[in-house]
């Protein structure tokens, strides 16, 4: 369960303050499928980094699974990122010197699995993304959409219970995007928590619950579907 209370994140650049998050409060229960919608620069990625234990808020309280985030040790957070959270980054964040397969294998390596299992699970995840014939390619040898799918495969390969996806369909054509959305719906149906970030209302409509974010302020949208 995710609970945020009055979370603020302020960047000051040359005397000017940017409130990336402004007293944002929200609560996401286990097994929910939530879309976070907002225009560019509204603070979506910032929110997600905090949710994914990569960044910390300047003020406010973030409670993950009934425990304030400050109470987790550095190693606890590394374990949570590895085992509980599947992160799809807006900018993919793939390791450029490694092949697609090696990139997807990495979280399983950090989980300490045996190399045979690592290999077969990573290959399966890539095949699911339609990249069975691109496993040996490095990210620079892949198109933007293919890189995005590698990033999704890496996030899903560990079977995380919380999926944080930052514009996962941003670089995909309509039908591939639809396929990915169906995948997230399946994951949601299987009981996983899915948080989907998008600036596209059509994409957001797939989610039963939508959160709007504007200039760092979070508002709940009434469910209409």
């Amino acid at each position, binding site marked *: 369960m995710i609970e945020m209370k009055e979370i603020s994140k302020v960047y000051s650049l040359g005397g000017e303050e940017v409130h990336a998050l402004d007293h944002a409060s929200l609560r996401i229960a286990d097994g929910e499928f939530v879309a976070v919608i907002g225009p560019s620069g509204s603070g979506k990625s910032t929110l997600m*980094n905090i949710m*994914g234990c*990569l*960044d910390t808020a300047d003020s406010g309280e973030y409670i993950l699974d009934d425990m304030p985030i400050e109470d987790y040790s*550095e*190693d606890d957070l*590394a*374990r949570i*990122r*590895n*085992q509980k959270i599947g*992160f799809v*980054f807006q900018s993919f*964040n*793939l*390791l450029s*010197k490694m092949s697609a397969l090696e990139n997807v294998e*990495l*979280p399983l*390596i*950090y*989980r*300490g699995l045996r*190399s045979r299992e690592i290999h077969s699970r990573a290959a399966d995840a890539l095949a699911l993304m339609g990249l069975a014939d691109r496993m040996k390619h490095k990210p620079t040898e892949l198109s933007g959409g293919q890189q995005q799918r590698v990033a999704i495969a*890496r996030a899903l390969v560990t079977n995380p219970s919380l999926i944080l996806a930052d514009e996962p369909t941003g670089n995909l054509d309509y039908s591939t995007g639809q396929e990915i959305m169906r995948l997230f719906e399946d994951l949601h149906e299987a009981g996983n928590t899915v948080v989907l970030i998008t600036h596209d209302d059509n994409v957001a409509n797939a989610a039963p619950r939508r959160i709007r974010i504007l200039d760092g302020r979070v508002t709940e949208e009434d469910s209409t579907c």
Partner: protein
Amino acid sequence: MLMQSFRMAFSSITSNKMRSFLTMLGIIIGIMAVVVLVSIVTSATDSIMGELDSLGADKLTVTVLNQRGLPLTLKEVSGYPDEYDSIAYVAPTARQSATAKTSTKEADAMILGTTSSYMEVEDLKLQAGRFLKSPDLENNSSVAVIGPSLANDLFSTVDVVGKTFYVGGRGFTIIGVLETAGESLLGSTNSAAIVPFTLAERMFRLQGISSFTVKAADSTLVAEAEDDLKHAMTARFKDESSFSVLNQSALLSSLDSIQGTLTLMLGGIAAISLLVGGIGIMNIMLVSVAERTREIGIRKAIGASRKRILTQFLIESLVLSTVGGLLGLLVSWGLLGLVSYVMDASYTMSPDVAVLAVVFSMVVGLIFGINPANKAAKMPPIEALRTE
């Protein structure tokens, strides 16, 4: 987990081969300098010690520097073995180089005047004929026992017993030929002509014995023999500065300590050069950590713990330094072979030195890798992700 870290370290090292090689160069050169120098020094001193050892640790050489108007006589010296239990044999020596001639040839020879005891003192072996005997000395016989090189130079054969050669117009009948001896520090007997001491004394116009060699009754009695000789000589000349007693076993132990000092000094050079190599590794590792900030961020974002990152970078610097050390050993091995070939000597690498060198370079890699690895491990993930 270690296996994976090793694989990552290797792939990161091989992905930038030139830089990795240059980084290792510091270690390679450091290890090479040390291993080659230490090997040469130990090989050289070992061979000197071996030579000294073969000269006999149970021998003492007495040199009379000033006869003080009372020349030391053959009779006095020959009495020492009876007089002192510690002394087994005494042989006076008078050396001078001269030209030996036959009717057709001539050769440089070392004329060595001594007595029959010289054979026992020096453990000489004959391949033909006999050695000097007491009557040869009593009669001042013009006889000589010669070395095989001299025999070859003069007669082109070693089958020369009974033949005659000339030194300064005096003819010598050859009564024996020595076996070939190894070269030694004090010159070898291979080109010597050993003649009765009494005859040499007259030829060289010597007044008394200026040098003699003593063989102790037992190798444990060398120190006692030395004391006895010093007593005898002090009593004889009433002055300790008139003579000197050279103890070869003492020489051996002092050489031993010289070798120790040299090795220690080279160890110091080793430490300094490996320190420099280590700083090189640290420098490159710091650059590598800075360059790979984003990679570190990504790894942390998908769940790498501090320990994983720390291990990865530590192993990387460990692999760099170990491979450097091994390459250094390889180069040293080649270089020693080359030096041995050029100098016509045998310089070998001792396994101790090799193992120590590799262990030392590994330790250097670990120590100088700690700081960069720690820096990488402590990087906050979000900031690392944002750098380009």
